[in-house]
């Protein structure tokens, strides 16, 4: 089965012609050929949002009117024979951390309630220019701090596979929307795993690009040195297409890399051929290997082992590699990210935007700021601000922030050593499970921050080193999706897509259908059928 074969795999007809079941690569062809209009597609999604979102709570904001207007404009332009970009008319959802001009943007926080930004994030502007149709803004953990969406000020989203389980986080609204067929794809952001973990637990493809390869301009900052936006999609090819649409140099982001993106979609297509001969794959011992299996579920380890065997069967040379500093990734991350966050979130003081509490003449300036932050921030955000403020305090800086930076350097060296070897012995990619467990039940970890933080165990090293990493589904355990993480050297995002596409194609072929197909059917189940 080929994945770029014009929709055979998605089987447009198999779900009775429902446009929402099409992957984007297919959808663009349908739109291009005029088999359906942008308005048709958009309306299909909006209908499904109306029907399903009350249960999934994927969206914080849906603007049907603007979406229909945008889609109409695309259809009219196409009717006039205008040259349109390949993505024109394709709907999309944006994580609410992405600033959108005139459209409410909250970052999942009460403190930004009512804010209508005056500008567009670079990636939002690029998607707009490409003619995509914004369906709405998706739910997220408050300021992207969390792995379940349970820290959202607006309540949690639900996993389409099991509504009593978390959809992952922080980009859990995006994962719920895409896996629930309420958007064909979506933008997520990943600071310590916030794209990959929700993708893994909902059966999606999620890619965290090389740090600096997608502009951060207009992403509400959590941890500036770690934040990256990236695609969340139902197929590897779709993820690559979305990555290409948002990536590339941006002069407004000083940390943006001034280099062309590798040919991502092309590599995804090539990878789907399934030939990985000569590709050297390292299995990271510290991420679920011998002696490092505490907290890993058997089902996850079993699917992972099968995925590794699959890679070998596709021709890859697989060997184990040790990256000792990865063991320190979690504590290092939980010093660096909160430190930067404590500073990034200082601007929310009630002076210029968002809510303001206590401005009644009875409170002075400091009190108004304190009350606003007390009321506006949730518990997890406060916890991290306090943690970060402490870590940066004079007298503690070296012991905490300074040490964490050293660990970060060591993690980078472990990657360099694994990928290194100018002699040609270096590994091309490293693999691990994306998460130690499948989606856990809602509420299971809200009172145990450390358990919650452990959800990021496997994703943190790539974040700290700034290297690209993708999560691609590798089967189900107890009926819930498991993700395979593929990490590559900085700027070699194409390798992630190539290997992921090979895994996806082989598994889809073996399964006889796509992993998400049961969900597409479920979405038009009896409860919502007229």
């Amino acid at each position, binding site marked *: 089965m080929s994945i770029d074969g014009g929709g055979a795999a998605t089987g447009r007809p198999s779900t009775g012609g429902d446009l929402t079941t099409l992957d984007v690569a297919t959808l663009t062809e349908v739109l291009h050929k005029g088999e359906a209009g942008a308005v048709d597609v958009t309306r299909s999604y909006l209908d499904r949002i109306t029907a399903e979102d009350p249960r999934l709570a994927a969206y914080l904001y849906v603007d049907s009117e603007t979406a229909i207007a945008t889609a109409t404009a695309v259809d009219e332009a196409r009717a006039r024979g205008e040259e349109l970009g390949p993505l024109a008319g394709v709907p999309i959802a944006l994580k609410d951390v*992405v*600033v959108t001009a005139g459209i409410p*943007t909250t*970052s999942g926080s009460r403190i*930004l309630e009512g*804010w209508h*930004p*005056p*500008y567009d*994030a670079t990636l939002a502007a690029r998607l707009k220019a490409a003619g995509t149709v914004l369906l709405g803004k998706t739910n997220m953990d408050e300021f992207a701090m969390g792995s379940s969406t349970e820290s959202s000020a607006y309540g949690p989203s639900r996993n389409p596979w099991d509504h009593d389980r978390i959809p992952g986080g922080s980009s859990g609204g995006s994962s719920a929307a895409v896996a629930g067929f309420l958007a064909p794809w979506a933008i997520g952001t990943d600071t310590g795993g916030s794209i990959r973990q929700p993708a893994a637990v909902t059966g999606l493809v999620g890619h965290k690009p090389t740090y600096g390869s997608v502009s*951060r*301009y*207009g*992403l*509400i*900052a959590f*941890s*500036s*040195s770690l934040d990256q936006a990236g695609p969340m999609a139902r197929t590897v090819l779709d993820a690559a297409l979305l990555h290409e649409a948002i990536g590339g140099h941006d*002069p*407004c*982001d*000083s*940390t943006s890399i001034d280099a062309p993106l590798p040919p991502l979609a092309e590599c995804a297509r090539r990878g789907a051929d399934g030939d990985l001969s000569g590709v050297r794959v390292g299995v990271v011992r510290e991420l679920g290997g011998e002696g490092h299996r505490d907290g890993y579920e058997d089902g996850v380890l079993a699917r992972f082992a099968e995925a590794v065997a699959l890679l070998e069967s596709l021709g890859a040379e697989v060997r184990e590699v040790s990256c000792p500093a990865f063991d320190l990734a979690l504590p290092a991350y939980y010093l660096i990210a909160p*430190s*930067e966050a*404590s*500073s990034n*979130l*200082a*601007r*929310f*003081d009630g*002076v*210029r*935007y968002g809510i303001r509490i206590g401005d009644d003449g009875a409170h002075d*300036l*400091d009190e108004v*700021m304190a009350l606003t932050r007390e009321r506006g921030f949730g518990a997890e955000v406060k916890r991290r601000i306090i943690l970060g*403020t402490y870590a*940066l*305090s*004079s007298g503690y*800086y070296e012991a905490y*922030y300074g040490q964490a930076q050293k660990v970060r350097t060591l993690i980078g060296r472990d990657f360099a050593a694994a990928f290194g070897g100018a002699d040609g012995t270096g590994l091309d990619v490293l693999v691990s499970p994306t998460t130690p467990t499948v989606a856990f039940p809602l509420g299971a970890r809200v009172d145990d921050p450390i358990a919650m933080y452990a959800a990021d165990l496997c994703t943190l090293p790539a974040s700290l080193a700034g290297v690209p990493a993708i999560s691609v589904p590798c089967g189900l355990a107890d009926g819930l999706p498991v993700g395979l993480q593929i990490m590559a050297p900085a700027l070699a995002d194409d390798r992630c897509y190539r290997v992921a596409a090979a895994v996806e194609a082989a598994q889809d072929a073996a399964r006889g259908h796509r992993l998400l197909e049961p969900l597409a059917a479920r979405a038009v189940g009896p409860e919502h059928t007229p």
Partner: protein
Amino acid sequence: MTDRLVDFDEVLTRYEPLIGLETHVELGTASKMFCGCATTFGAEPNTQTCEVCLGMPGSLPVANAAAIEATIRIGLALGCRIATWCRFARKNYFYPDIPKGFQTSQYDEPLCTAGHLDVEVDGETYRIEIERVHLEEDTGKNLHVGGATGRIHGADHSLIDYNRAGIPLVEIVTRPIPLTGAKAPEVAKAYVTELREILLALGVSEVRMEQGNLRSDVNTSLAPIGSLEWGTRTETKNVNSLRSVERAVRYEIRRQAAVLDAGARIVQETRHFHEDTGSTSPGRSKEEATDYRYFPEPDLVPIAPDPEWVEKLAAGLPELPAARRVRLREEWGLSDTEMAWLVNAGALGLVADTVAAGASPSDARKWWLGELARRANDAGQELTELPVTPGQVAELTRLVAEGTVNDQLARQALDGVLAGEGDPAEVVQARGLAVMGESDELVSAVDAAIAGAPDVVAKVQGGKVQALGALVGAVMKQTRGKADAATVKRMLEERLLG
């Protein structure tokens, strides 16, 4: 509350002052430090802002290359070492005039380090060691409405103008300056003066102190003479005129001496300077000082100036004020003392520009140190603030040299220039100030003088030629000074003695 003060000279018999200065300079770049907003002074509040300088969520800074270049040039002019790699840092604190909740500054990795600046006071040279020169961004401006003090306490509400937020600001920090003794206040002033001259020569800032382009924090401490330890210092913030720098140091020396004499301790604190009284008052004490939690700014890439480029910048520096003074002194043939006068009067640049506009050095000096200095003094202004340009002064000297006007008429022409009536030649024309030739008017004035004083005429003709002066005076009076005295004298001689 009035501080007890000890007589300045008396303090110096028992204490040794130590001073230090942190000077902030707003660069004159066209756009702000981290965004493209304009930097025009005096624009409508909050019209020169964008999502970046307002600290909107999601916005990111991009460093202004022109500001980095200007900072390096300042460092080079001060003989600093230029870092080959350094970073911005975040200085975290809460205040509404910093839109991001932190100021983007530099901390332990400044762009320029280890320079010096020599200043001269009363013929003595003092070497001021420069610890660092770094780049940061300015804050917004608060306006506290209602309430008596204009401060936040007691105000009804506060307004913030973010036009200034994000304007590039260079901070120049000296090392502690020892052994200045009684000259400490003047050394402090001379340092800021010389620094300002350098900044002007470099063209990196307009350095308008009244607009707050240049503000100094002045550190002062006292130690008993012979003591091996320095005293506790105070930091007088935002002193923004040259004269105030001197006054602030002088006041702190006198105040601290009184505190120490009383057996009390100096509190390490920031202090406010009051222009009206020349006094300082307490601000924040060190105990209340914020922990700024500095850390490297992750939103900006490190600055790594290419050494070759830095060398090029060094080679391209303009003539610096000290070298210029030596050259001009030689060109103009002045003594050290004469040159010092010129510099102390703040007239060197004006004289040089006047000479460049065609005046002779001696004429230019005469005007600026004489008539113009007197007028500036009467008006309580700096020479540079007088509404007359070096070009106009040069034109006045030319009119005198050509004989179009005499000195007295030239001063009247200057009145017109200062009153905004135009260039000297225009004023002379409009006010009819030109010296009279042997016109009918002058002939009849001479006639009238002769007719009006027969006794003087008799004396002159009787041989007392000196008496002629009275007749000349009468003619000058009649012509309201417009006649040329020498011409009048010659005409009288021809008539009476011819």
